[in-house]
């Protein structure tokens, strides 16, 4: 019994880390190809499977050429000279890349990749650890990667990496607050911190961002409105949830140091940022850590807001629960959603120009922090409607409005530039 679970866990660990690492490389090729297409280029489309090395006549080209490019990239990184400059602090210099990549890979432990699979009468959840504190675990571990980046900047003992490290540190810590606060309305709504249960809830009641169906049926059928009060409440809840989604997504961008928040490594100012002094596989680890963080971030957004592995529209309920092929189908759907989100990351990269550092800090501390905070109360008002009644909600809303206006006034005063004559 216990050995069975142990073996299942071992298989899951191997499989999901494998999936994540494969996804990292897929991310790289997708990013390169999609970037190229946006810029009217072709991108890497030549890499083949080099069968000629094994003595075959021809190299095997995949239908979408270049899919094996990440393999070639990885090989290049391994074979390159691993140069350690003489002036670095060796121990931390070696430690930093590991500290970036390990938290990123650890966080995927709690993400449900697919629906529970039934093996020998037992339902095995397709998450390595079906923790009851999923999002908290992710936030706790993900914030450790700040250490890696900061240590890299400091241990490099060189000015540009140092600037990059300091910037990354400040940025990631700032946005963690917005990240944590923005997810609170979602957790209040679900009433659970178990990501598996959150997804199952979304299977039954519609994705968080797409509440088009519930137990009764689709939104247009009368079954949906069986309980009109809760249906209206659910639709009203879309306002705080959309705000949450926007803040959360943007914060994920900032947390993963992606454009438009890639100030820790902006080439125009800092050469390469915190990884300037790194080469070979150590650089590749930073690279991988960053992309793994991106994959896990996307996976978290998909899990919380877009229904995780569920196909949606009531199709999930028609499929036999627990069958292995259903689980794999759900796994595929989940990965598909994550892929779409990664393409979204790339799209944003080539659309939004990089922020100035003070703008970044303002956005994090003055806009998102307050907005997320107010959003928590807004969601609370909508959720508490059945217990405090219409008048309670109205009074609460008016109070919230007053506080919001006060906050905006204060924030405006804080962001005002000192006038030139005042100097």
């Amino acid at each position, binding site marked *: 019994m216990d050995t069975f679970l142990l073996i299942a866990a071992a298989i899951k660990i191997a499989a999901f880390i494998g999936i994540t690492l494969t996804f990292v490389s897929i991310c790289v090729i997708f990013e390169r190809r999609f970037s190229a297409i946006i810029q009217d*280029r072709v991108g890497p489309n030549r890499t083949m499977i080099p069968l000629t090395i094994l003595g075959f006549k021809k190299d095997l080209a995949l239908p979408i050429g270049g899919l094996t490019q990440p393999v070639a990239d990885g090989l290049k990184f391994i074979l390159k000279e691993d140069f350690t400059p003489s002036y670095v602090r060796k121990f931390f210099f070696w430690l930093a890349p590991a500290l970036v990549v390990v938290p990123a890979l650890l966080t995927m432990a709690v993400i449900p990749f697919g629906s529970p699979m039934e093996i020998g009468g037992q339902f095995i959840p397709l998450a390595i650890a079906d923790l009851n504190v999923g999002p908290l675990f992710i936030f706790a571990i993900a914030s450790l990667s700040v250490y890696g980046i900061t240590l890299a900047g400091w241990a490099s003992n060189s000015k540009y990496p140092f600037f990059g490290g300091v910037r990354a540190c400040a940025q990631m810590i700032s946005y963690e607050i917005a990240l944590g606060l923005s997810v609170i309305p979602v957790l209040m709504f679900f009433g659970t911190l178990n990501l598996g249960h959150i997804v199952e809830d979304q299977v039954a009641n519609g994705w968080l961002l797409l509440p088009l169906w519930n137990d009764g049926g689709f939104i247009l059928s009368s079954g949906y409105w069986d309980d009109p009060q809760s249906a209206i409440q659910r639709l009203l809840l879309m306002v705080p949830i959309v705000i949450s989604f926007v803040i959360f997504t943007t914060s994920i961008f900032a947390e993963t140091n992606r454009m438009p928040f890639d100030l820790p490594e902006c080439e125009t100012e800092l050469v390469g940022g915190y990884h300037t002094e790194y080469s070979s596989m150590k650089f590749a680890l930073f690279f991988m850590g960053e992309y793994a963080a991106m994959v896990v971030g996307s996976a978290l957004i998909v899990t919380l807001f877009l229904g995780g592995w569920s196909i949606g529209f009531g199709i999930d309920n028609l499929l036999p629960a627990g069958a292995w092929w259903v689980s794999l189908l759900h796994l595929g759907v989940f990965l598909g959603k994550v892929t779409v989100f990664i393409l979204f990351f790339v799209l944003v990269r080539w*659309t939004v120009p990089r922020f100035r550092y003070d703008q970044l800090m303002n956005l994090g501390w003055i806009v998102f922090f307050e907005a997320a905070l107010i959003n928590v109360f807004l969601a609370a008002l909508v959720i508490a409607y059945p217990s405090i009644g219409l008048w309670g909600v109205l009074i609460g809303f008016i109070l919230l409005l007053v506080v919001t206006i006060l906050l905006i006034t204060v924030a405006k005063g804080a962001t005002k530039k000192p006038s030139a004559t005042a100097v």
Partner: protein
Amino acid sequence: MAIIKVERPKLTVGEKIYFGSIFKGMVITLRHAFKSLLGKSTGAEALKSSGLGITMQYPEQKWDDQLPEYYRGAPALVTDELDRERCVSCQLCEFICPPKAIKITPAEIPSTDEWSKVEKRPKEFDIDMIRCIYCGMCEEVCPEQAIYLRPDYVITGTERSEMVHDKKRLYEIGGKRVGLVNKWNDLK
């Protein structure tokens, strides 16, 4: 002239909230991406795109027919109308060559030969294409109009020795060139 004060346009509330503008931007980027994917980017036709963006994919597609008259590719030796080697191995090109890519071994033309009055012709004529910088000085300095820069640019090899063009190869590239000044025969 009255001074016209141009006011900086005020941002509307929608623009201040910023997300609408980002969304608009993303739509523009996506539209551009789709156009690029379909090979309909601006200038794709003029640049002979391969159907993906505006890029011409090299080994399959080439720009050869667009090369200008004066394109400086591989240097090559030419023969005249009567298939006589124009080169008289004066070695001026060897001496002018900035990267010292040219190596000539002169030889005398035997008196029995039809062109014995020309006196010399190259026995060996090697151009090291790894050294050549395509400056065209050999062409300019040649008193016999015997060496020309041809529009060949695909010079590849897997060994250094393959990259040295010998006399045979140079005539192969150069071929026959007519209408030049003729010193040694009666053709005009």
